[in-house]
């Protein structure tokens, strides 16, 4: 499982970085989304992989922390998901506004050869 997940993270990150370096705004926005998936999974995987033990505690009694998934990376990723949604939305709007102002969807606001 670890190998599969790390390969998956790598593939998503590579696709994201590739798109990040492209000249069209839509490519960059898709790239950012992919990269944020990869990074979220990466942060999540820092808590190691646990199957079937979500961090939901019993009501009272002794708690053995080893028996549950690490909640800290989960809390971090939950925040990251929301924030990356916000940045995607912001970037989308900037992209639209820049397209309206400059008449092109190149990331520099002008075509390369102009």
């Amino acid at each position, binding site marked *: 499982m670890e190998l599969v997940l790390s390969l998956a993270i790598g593939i998503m990150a590579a696709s994201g970085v590739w798109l990040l370096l492209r000249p069209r705004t839509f490519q960059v926005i898709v790239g950012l989304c992919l990269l944020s998936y990869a990074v979220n999974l990466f942060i999540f995987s820092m808590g190691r*992989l646990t199957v079937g033990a979500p961090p*939901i505690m019993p009501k009272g009694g002794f708690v053995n922390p080893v028996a549950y998934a690490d*909640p800290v990376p989960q809390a971090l990723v939950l925040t990251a998901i*929301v924030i990356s949604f916000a940045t995607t939305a912001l970037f989308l*709007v*900037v992209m639209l*506004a820049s397209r309206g102002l400059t008449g092109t969807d190149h990331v520099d606001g002008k075509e390369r050869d102009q």
Partner: protein
Amino acid sequence: MIEQNLILILVLLPFLGALAAATLPVNAHNAAAWVSGLVLAGGLVILAMLHAPVSEGRVLRVFVQWVPSLRLNLPFRVDGFAWFFVTLVLSIGVLVVIYARYYLSRTDPVPRFYSFLLAFTGAMVGLLLSGNILMLVVFWELTSITSFLLIGYWNQSQAARDGARMALIVTAVGGLCLLVAMLVLGQIVGAYDLDRVLASGDVIRAHPLYPLVLVLFLIGAFTKSAQFPFHFWLPGAMAAPTPVSAFLHSATMVKAGVFLLVRFSPTLGGTELWFFAVTGTGMATLLIGAVIALFRHDLKGLLAYSTISHLGLITALAGIGSTGAIVAAIFHIANHAVFKASLFMAAGIIDHETGTRDMRKLSGLFRAMPFTGTLAIVASAAMAGVPLLNGFLSKEMFFAEAVDWHNGTWLDNSLPYIATAASIFSVAYSVRFIATVFFGPPASDLPKQAHEPSPWMRRPVELLVFVCLAVGIFPGLTLGPVLNDAARAVVGADLPHQDIAIWHGLNWPLYMSLIAMAVGTLIYIVFARRISAGPEGPPVIWRVRAQRIYEKLLLELTWKLPRRLHGFFGTERLQPQLRLLVLLAVVCLGVTLWGALSPVQKPLARTTALNPAFLLMWGVGAACAIGAAWQAKYHRFAALVLLGGAGLVTCLTFAWFSAPDLAVTQLLVEIVTTVLLLLGLRWLPRRREEIAADKLLPAKIRRGRDLVIALVSGAGLAALSYVVMTRPLIPNVGDWFLRNAYYEGGGTNTVNVILVDFRAFDTFGEITVLAIVGLTVYALLRRFRPAAESSGVPDQQKGEVTVALKDYMLVPSAIMRWMFPVLIVISAYLFFRGHDLPGGGFSSGVTLAIALLLQYIASNVRWIEARIVILPIRWMGIGLLIAGATGVGAWLVGYPFLTAHAQYVDVPLIGKVPAATALIFDLGVFALVVGATVLMLIAIAHQSLRSARQREQEAEADKKEAL
């Protein structure tokens, strides 16, 4: 206790006065002057009350706690020296205020002037009384800033703006050096308390960092008191109104530098380094200032260089550091302040009544203004050091120190010669000032008809000149006692009483004075004509001016160098910047993690058995990711679908590995993101493969390079995550969260408890960011203008297809409408179970947003907005308020911000329900998420509506035209 309060009032009074003066109407000339004058006079009354304890040798202290955790407090202390100096500042301040009342014209905005003047006085008083060396630097910088404002008071003039900027840059840079010096000093001593620092001279001088501290400290002091080579800002500052020049740039602010030198001379001084640096600089400044002053044609220019020269004299005395030298330095600080302030005021009167300050034009004014002339003559005689005037006494003391043997170095031996030479020039420029301005034939081409000023403009000068005479004739009766108090405060309580006498018999200092007077007068008589005809400065060296060097340096540093750097490093293009960023990340991580990434020798500690379904799932996920990367250029819609696929697989992975909260949130956010991007697609230009020019070789090379970068970063991240995942988990803070989620947070869902209770402040920050993003999106789209090609009706809505589309959508839209109540219930369900089971404010907020969104998709915007009123900004505001109020609520019961309280409440029919205050916080999160999400989606959706409205208007206009 009364004394303590008096000190605090003394420090605060000028600042309060500044506030009061600032609020007066623009033309309140008298009121502003009265306020300032009374404030300063009030300060003097307080000082009079403090005189008795101070003269007994006591040090009065008051201590205000400010930031105790940083050891930053506001201690103020009054000893003899500080008392002496503050009295000097406030007395001259009162006179300057009276003078300024008659000097400033009716059209000047006076409240600003007096407000700045009082703020400056406050900063100066704070600097003098500060008992903490860091606070001292703060007040020090405050004097630089207020002085900047005062020099630039006539901000319509270019000279004033340039002079102000130059003064600020030079003195503020010095202030920064002083700050570093004080920080290091504080580290050496182990305290920032002035008393402790002053008492630790031996420790400081023996410390290896002593030279560094000394150099930085001296840069600070020298820039402030205009010592060579930092002297050039002072003549530039003469663009200030004359009252400012008289107050700041002769009597007080420039004296702050020498104040510091005198204050620290017993602590930092006594070494050869100190002697050479301080006395050497002081003597150089003394001579250079005196020489240049002789050649200036501008009255205030002459006085400015004379000030520089006299400051050099005081600096040299502080460098010598013997008891007699310290007494002489303090004495000269006062004497110089008195005669120089009166001279500046006299120069201001001449300027005011004749319209010029150029000594080549002024002549024979004694007939027109005999009183002012007499006063100026007495004051310049004091400046030149003529017997029976105060300047003579302190200069004699300086000469005596110069003649005395101190350490036998070459500098010590040459002191008398330099002192005599400088004194010769000092006499010469004083004679020139009087002779050219007041004597000779009457001036013919003055801009104004010269006459005596209004009597009250002359009163301050009269008083100051009277002081010159009184101190000069009866030194022991006037300044003697306070001077002794001041010197004792600096040198130590065991200082024997210093007697200031007028007559010491025939000795070397007297001979030196006589030589200086004779030769100085002779020089003026011989060279008067040539000096007047010559350039503005001494022969030959007038071309080399420190100010030019400064200007060149400034141009180089603030204009040329940044532009060159920008040309070299900068790019307007995004791609190279991103490439650089990615490469930097890869290289940095690669270098630091190289050892960790190498294959592990021992058997891997931790693996989970592979499930084929998981492999299959990620096969699809990877294909989706690569497909999205591949198709994003020409087939945006396909790329979006594939992106969604990758997101879903991510979401399933979260669910698989025990993170139900993440899975829920990811799924919901995924939906919203996809809709958002779909809405955006409409406004992008068409792109077809056949018109692309990227089949060429350069484009292929670029893509190849980017592919390599992408592969390397992907491989790196994969390797890193594999290495980390296979290592055993180190016990961390997460265990504490798990153990205490129920007992401390009152919820069983640890992730939610972390978000809304343990780390609620982070969440508070995060939702604030979300709100800001929502508002930004809204603001950006208010002025949105789509590109011309996108503003028409989309192809899909043209012709026959539109009707068919409406029919096709009928069933889905009916279902979507029915989904609305269902989704609201799901949202509520997710919200209420959030503290114990997966769910919470975020996910339920996004669910509600989706419910609203579906209604928008099901019908058109107008239909839905006629039926539901949604005010997303209110939702956001209320959400933020609720969250904030929950945090503040903890204060009411005496806990820190955002402390949560948790208990379970038995609700009939439902059973036990967690009722933590964190739940209220979560309600705030929920409302804000709903508001922000809906705001963003609606703002984008409305763009179609707007362009549709635009089309309708255009069609109407066309119709009208056709008719």
